[in-house]
């Protein structure tokens, strides 16, 4: 099977989702077990806490060709590591505002608080995010063209 | 000696770039650097020194020498070397041209760097003499005559015209292409400018730079091998 898709029929976005192990990853599991579908182009990376996500990872995702990056964590106050998501909130508030300042479309970056019991919400958020990014089209601004040509 | 009015320089650029790729000092986002000419680009020959030297044309800061493709477990090396299109490097200052000569000694000597050689042979260098050297210029101490540059074609620029003197076959070949744009003459204006330039060079602070500041041993090596002075 040619695992590298040669040409893309119509544009399907490539979304990287960072999910924190205790809440949003469990929320994603619940969405799964409740069969609440969302598009397949969302791929989840498990991190111990949302505060583990370094802005470098977000930029690396965009560089490698992601069209949208979403970060999910526990609701502030529910963090398994007490204060982790408070730092995430500040870091991403500044990073997202800064990326927008550099001209990157604001809708490409997103942060959502999803608890372990919110499978419904997880699926709704992912569906909405894929729709938004699809409307935005392919990420041409924050990406390494060399990677795009499949080198 | 040929000359062309300053106002018609754009036509010269257009003519050259029809035949070959033209690289010359272009002002972009507030800084002057060597870049590919295109209609509408702001050419700035008056700027004494571009931020980065023209070395990039021959010895770029980074280049893709090869590519490899992995398919499962096997790796395939792709030779992506492309023949450099014929290029004209316009507006090279005399000191930069000497630097290119020094580079030639390194990259064209055995074992030859074929990437460098390919680019070097494909390029015709048009040097531009200096009219107003600055206090930080040190060409004199390295035996460079700011007023009479070497290169495939030497040019001088004053208030009204650009004066054009081909020195090598490459220079002749290029001149043939754009001859009809030029008029004869201009020797007088050129020598007048040369007078003035050389007078300024004498007065520059670094005119009498004492190389012995470098340790004696290195200064001899420096002058002998790199500058070709025996």
């Amino acid at each position, binding site marked *: 099977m040619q695992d590298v898709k040669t040409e893309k029929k119509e544009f399907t976005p490539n979304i990287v989702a960072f999910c924190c192990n205790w809440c949003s990853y469990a929320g994603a599991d619940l969405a799964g077990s409740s069969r609440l579908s969302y598009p397949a182009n969302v791929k989840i990376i498990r991190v111990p806490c949302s505060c583990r996500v370094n802005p470098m990872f977000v930029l690396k995702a965009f560089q490698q060709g992601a069209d949208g990056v979403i970060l999910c964590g526990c609701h502030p106050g529910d963090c398994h590591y007490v204060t982790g998501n408070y730092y995430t909130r500040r870091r991403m508030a500044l990073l997202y*505002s800064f990326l927008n300042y550099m*001209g990157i479309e604001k809708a490409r970056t997103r942060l959502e608080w999803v608890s372990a019991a919110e499978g419904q919400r997880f699926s709704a958020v992912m569906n909405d995010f894929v729709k938004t990014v699809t409307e935005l089209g392919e990420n041409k601004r924050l990406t390494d063209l060399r990677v795009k040509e499949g080198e | 000696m040929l000359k062309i009015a300053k106002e018609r320089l754009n036509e010269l650029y257009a003519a050259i770039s029809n035949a070959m790729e033209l690289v010359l000092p272009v002002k972009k986002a507030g800084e002057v650097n060597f870049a590919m000419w295109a209609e509408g680009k702001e050419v700035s020959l008056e700027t004494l020194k571009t931020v980065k030297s023209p070395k990039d044309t021959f010895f770029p*800061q980074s280049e893709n020498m090869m590519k490899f493709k992995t398919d499962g477990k096997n790796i395939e090396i792709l030779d992506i070397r492309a023949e450099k299109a014929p290029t004209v490097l316009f507006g090279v200052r005399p000191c930069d041209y000497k630097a290119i000569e020094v580079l030639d000694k390194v990259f064209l000597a055995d074992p030859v760097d074929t990437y460098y050689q390919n680019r070097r042979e494909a390029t015709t260098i048009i040097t531009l003499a200096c009219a107003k050297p600055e206090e930080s210029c040190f060409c004199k101490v390295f035996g460079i005559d700011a007023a009479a540059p070497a290169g495939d074609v030497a040019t001088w620029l004053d208030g009204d015209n650009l004066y054009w003197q081909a020195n090598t076959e490459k220079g002749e070949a290029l001149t043939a292409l754009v001859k009809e744009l030029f008029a004869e003459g201009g020797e007088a204006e050129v020598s007048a400018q040369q007078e003035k330039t050389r007078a300024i060079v004498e*007065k520059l602070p670094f005119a009498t730079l004492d190389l012995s500041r470098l340790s004696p041993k290195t200064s001899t090596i420096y002058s002998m091998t790199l500058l070709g002075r025996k």
Partner: protein
Amino acid sequence: MKDVELKVVERAKALLASGEVARVVGWKKGDFCFDPSPAVFESVEELDGLVYNWFCGANLSKYLIEISKKEGKTAVFLKPCDTYSFNQLIKEHRINREKVYAIAVECLGKLDVEKIKAKGVSMIEDVEVVEKEVKVATAYGTETLHKPEVLLTKCETCQKTHQVKDEEIILHERPARDVDRFAEVAKLEAMTEDERFAFWKEQLSKCIRCNACRNVCPACSCVKCVFDNPASGISAKANDAEFEEQLFHIIRAFHVAGRCTDCGECSRVCPQNIPLHLLNRKFIKDIDGFYGEYQAGEEAEGKTPLTSFTEGDVEPNDAVDGEAK
């Protein structure tokens, strides 16, 4: 200005001669009048080369990271903007405060020789400034320029005061000014996303990855920088792909966010004159807007905005340009 310079040299010699300090960090005369460079003076004779003039824009606090590790005390001359960086480095335990004798030196703004040259002035021999007039003596006669037009960019919006001093050499009071240092940032914020992207794409495409900005930045003084460390995963050095420059500058700006004192050195040293301070000021403006006024370097202890939080912080999805939209 000459009077201040004399006092500086005199105090430096006195401190060194008396053995109170083992060395003095200042600026030494360059080849011309407009290119003094930071230097360490260890003997009184060497101090003859010590200068303090209208071109001493360099921030000396970063050099103290290594020098304060040496034996004996070090005297250093700090302009108002330098003292914030000095404080920030004390907070991060990079400078040993007891081993530094800080002399707060007067600063009425420094000149930018490139801006002078851009006005067609060359072969500069000396400069004298009286009130708002800058008299430039050159080989081709004297030119007079208007001071605000040839100030260093970082001095144009400077409202800083000395935060640290063991001693002070201030002979002329600096007129307080009210100027909005975020005006440029606001102008960019007012643009559309496409215009902003075009602006930064053009500016950053000039970047030649010479690392001058990183090497001069007091906040960017890691023992081993991520960009020098192949294990970091982002250590690319090539400057041929646009994204590399974006990545380098975004990550550098993020690493100093909340710690950058807006000393403006990065823009001063950039050979391609990329307005790098507009990147760091964006973070400062956002931090002030989101979490309340904060000036890095005002105190030498305590948390920075990125290592503290409040329950009510703004949500990232609606955090834009310093407010929740």
